[in-house]
């Protein structure tokens, strides 16, 4: 139906374009009027008026129609005596009703369901009809309005440009809408979570075992259950594991990345630089799931084997393996950014240092790096924020159980791993377990936001200093 409507709108628009163009042309020739714009702009003007309101309406309608129909149907089913205790059962019944309507349901159909399916068919019909009528109404009104406008020989080009500029502005607003969407979707579930679990129990608890809250409705938790849940959602082991793995990753990435950045900026010939820089950047382009596979199947077992030979017990999901591979992934973030930063240190500083007899490495260590330090710190912070938000490597190579440990040979878990583990497969939407994933997501979002903000400030400040 929607496709037919879009097709019709397109045909109308195209024909209106030619109509507007030729109409204004003939008028101007016949009455010898000087047009305020090229004839084609009158065509564009009509097209925009014909299509935009109708398409926007269609989009909004299509977004809300299923939701509204669903709530109506569930209500009518409830009025007719259908019994469901929670949202999931209601969803199930709704799906059944839909399947009956489509003729794809093969099971017992009782009278309530049958009635509801009829009601569903009625509402679908009603909604579709009113949609078509309303869209044609909108098209007619807007086309009449725009035809009147072009008859008066308006400044069609200016008007078209105003509309297009509005379109450009709306496109740039999508970024803001995305941010708002993220904040609302995270906050919405997190608030529900924190209404069950005290925020301090969450932030300072040292025990993370969300499986205790599996399939438990948040609205009907008894006092005993509440006591049990109270210390099931402790954030400390997760942040400890996350920072620990990120720390190992930085131990790998910072020295290698920094030194290769320095070498590339200060020593390497143009030829070496042109070859090695893109190859190192390949490391950033490889999908993280590939690193995860490599860490889980090659590096983890390898460390375990080496550990066995040395008489150590190494978990095959050790923090060391995950951290090492994550560090490799992050090398190019550190090296490229520090390369850029070092390149923008003014040559005069180096020349001054050479003039008093310093060697190249002394110049780098005592002049260039101190001058570039804010930028380098910024790039390291950006790398840290990548590391704590990285998901696939840790999901595949780090452990699932939340251990509070600082032994890199043991397994530990991270925030992102837990989010994936909680949300993969079937979810109970109202259980504190599911909501906790959103609380974790919110925490992660805020943490990376702060890190990025500081990093970007540092890099920007530094750039301004030497520009």
């Amino acid at each position, binding site marked *: 139906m929607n496709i037919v409507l879009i097709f019709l709108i397109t045909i109308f628009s195209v024909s209106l374009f030619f109509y507007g163009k030729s109409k204004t042309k003939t008028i101007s020739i016949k009455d010898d009027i000087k047009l305020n714009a090229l004839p084609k702009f009158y065509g564009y003007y009509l097209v925009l008026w014909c299509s935009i309101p109708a398409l926007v309406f269609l989009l909004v309608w299509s977004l809300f129609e299923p939701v509204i129909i669903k709530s109506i149907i569930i209500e009518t089913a409830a009025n007719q005596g259908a019994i469901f205790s929670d949202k999931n059962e209601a969803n199930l019944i709704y799906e059944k009703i839909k399947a009956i309507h489509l003729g794809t349901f093969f099971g017992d159909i009782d009278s309530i369901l049958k009635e509801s399916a009829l009601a569903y068919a009625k509402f679908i019909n009603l909604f579709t009809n009113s949609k078509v009528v309303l869209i044609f109404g909108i098209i007619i009104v807007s086309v009449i309005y725009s035809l009147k406008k072009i008859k008066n020989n308006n400044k069609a080009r200016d008007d078209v440009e105003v509309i297009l*500029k509005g379109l450009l502005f709306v496109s740039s607003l999508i970024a*803001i809408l995305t941010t708002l969407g993220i904040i609302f979707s995270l906050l919405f579930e997190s608030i529900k979570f924190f209404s069950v679990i005290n925020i301090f129990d969450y932030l300072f608890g040292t025990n993370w075992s969300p499986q205790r809250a599996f399939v438990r409705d948040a609205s009907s938790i008894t006092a005993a259950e509440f006591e049990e849940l109270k210390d099931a959602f402790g954030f400390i082991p997760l942040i400890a594991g996350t920072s620990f793995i990120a720390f190992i990753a930085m131990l790998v990435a910072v020295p290698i990345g920094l030194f*290769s950045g320095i070498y590339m900026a200060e020593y390497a010939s143009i030829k070496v630089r042109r070859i090695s820089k893109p190859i*190192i950047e390949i490391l950033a382009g490889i999908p993280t799931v590939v690193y995860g596979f490599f860490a889980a199947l090659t590096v983890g077992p390898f460390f375990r084997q080496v550990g066995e030979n040395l008489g150590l017990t190494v978990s095959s999901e050790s923090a060391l393996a995950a951290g090492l591979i994550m560090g490799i992934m992050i090398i190019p973030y550190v090296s490229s950014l520090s390369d850029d930063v070092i390149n923008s240190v003014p040559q005069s500083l180096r020349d001054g240092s050479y003039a008093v007899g310093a*060697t190249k490495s002394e110049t780098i260590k005592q002049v260039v790096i101190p001058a570039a330090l804010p930028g380098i710190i910024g790039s390291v912070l950006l790398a840290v924020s990548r590391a704590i938000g990285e998901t696939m490597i840790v999901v595949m190579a780090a452990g699932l159980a939340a251990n509070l440990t600082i032994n890199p040979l043991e397994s530990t878990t991270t925030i*992102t791993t837990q989010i*994936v583990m909680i949300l993969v497969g079937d979810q109970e939407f109202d259980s504190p377990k599911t909501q906790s994933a959103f609380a974790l997501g919110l925490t992660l979002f805020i943490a990376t936001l702060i890190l990025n903000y500081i990093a970007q400030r540092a890099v920007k400040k530094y750039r301004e200093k030497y520009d």
Partner: protein
Amino acid sequence: MTKEERLKKRHRAEKRFRFYGLTSIFVALLFVVILVQNIFSKGSSAFKKTVITTEVFFDQELLEIQNGAPQEEIMEADFYDVMIENLIKAYPAKDRDEEDELLKLFSGDAEIEIKKAFLNDNNLIGKTITLDLTASDDIDQLHKGNYPRDLPEERRRISDFQLVIYDYFVENKKISKNFNNYFFNNGDSRDPELAGIGGALVGSFYSILICLLLAFPVAVLASIYLEEFAPKNKITDFIEININNLAAVPSIVYGLLALQILLATIQLPRSTPLVAGITLALMTLPRIIIPCRASLKAVPPSIREGALAVGASKFQSVFHHVVPLALPGTLSGTIIGLAQALGETAPLILIGMVAFVVDIPSSPVDPSSSLPVQVYLWSESAERGFVEKTSATIMMLLSFLIVMNFIAVYLRQKFEKRWN
């Protein structure tokens, strides 16, 4: 310490420092080589599959159809007995147990393969043909040398007797390696020898197509606005900061967004390329806007001023002159953004693309998998055969990424104008 000694020491420090730099570049390059080599050595064997050459006799009594039977009749006919009858002749087995072990060496699709042969030529009743039937995963891995046969029997998936049969096959040249068409055509399967990336390829294609259709126009329009039209005020600054921050938000957060808004609120169908495409588009948008703006910024003001001077409006100067000149940079930025989206896994896992989907999706609203998610799914499987399948999937994924990046670099180098 004399002057000379001190100088020597400083020069040694200089050399050391240089050595550190060179070593770290070398280490980084080494990692690339190890990773690629590791994946390729594991995965390249997956493009071939082991087949057992078997004589198949189409017995009229067992099939109960005539020569020249129409297609529907063949589809409904039972080829199971014919399959059993012929497969047990592949090796002179002594009793039922031995026959069972023999049958386990063939894939679960042997019946379908025989049926397909008959569908191709429906005059085979009463005739004998030789067919290359796909071998089971265990024999496949053994034949490719991925599977140690010197383990004690109870730690092997293949019994001693099956090894005897295998050696008999090898001796009589009945076992060989063919091109693995299943790997490209089939959807997912629990049997490694039948599992393929067909479904994941189509799923990824739809997701990336939707991502392109949504993200590219919006990103271009938004960057044109921000770069050319936006007044310098608080709102514009806010949008800018927002875009920079969004580009750095961890991808899993977009998964949570999609779960809450697209699945729970708008109720789009789970596990579908449609939802995946929208999620990836939201994620890629800021990552495309940043290079788009850079390439618009690189067009010198003289171009705009020239257009304005001959009477073009602001819009005409931008759309007739600036945008076409910035297009190569814009396109290459978009392709690189899409390449990142193609390899993205975490948000897709959250929107349920980890479901086990056997069918190849025929539209963007069918449940489906995608290439990186398939890598994740198979890497969790225990069977030996999935390791090579996973590596081969990674090889496919990496080759797509390499092609996309090359196109991006080519576009930039070939068409981008240098202004100085």
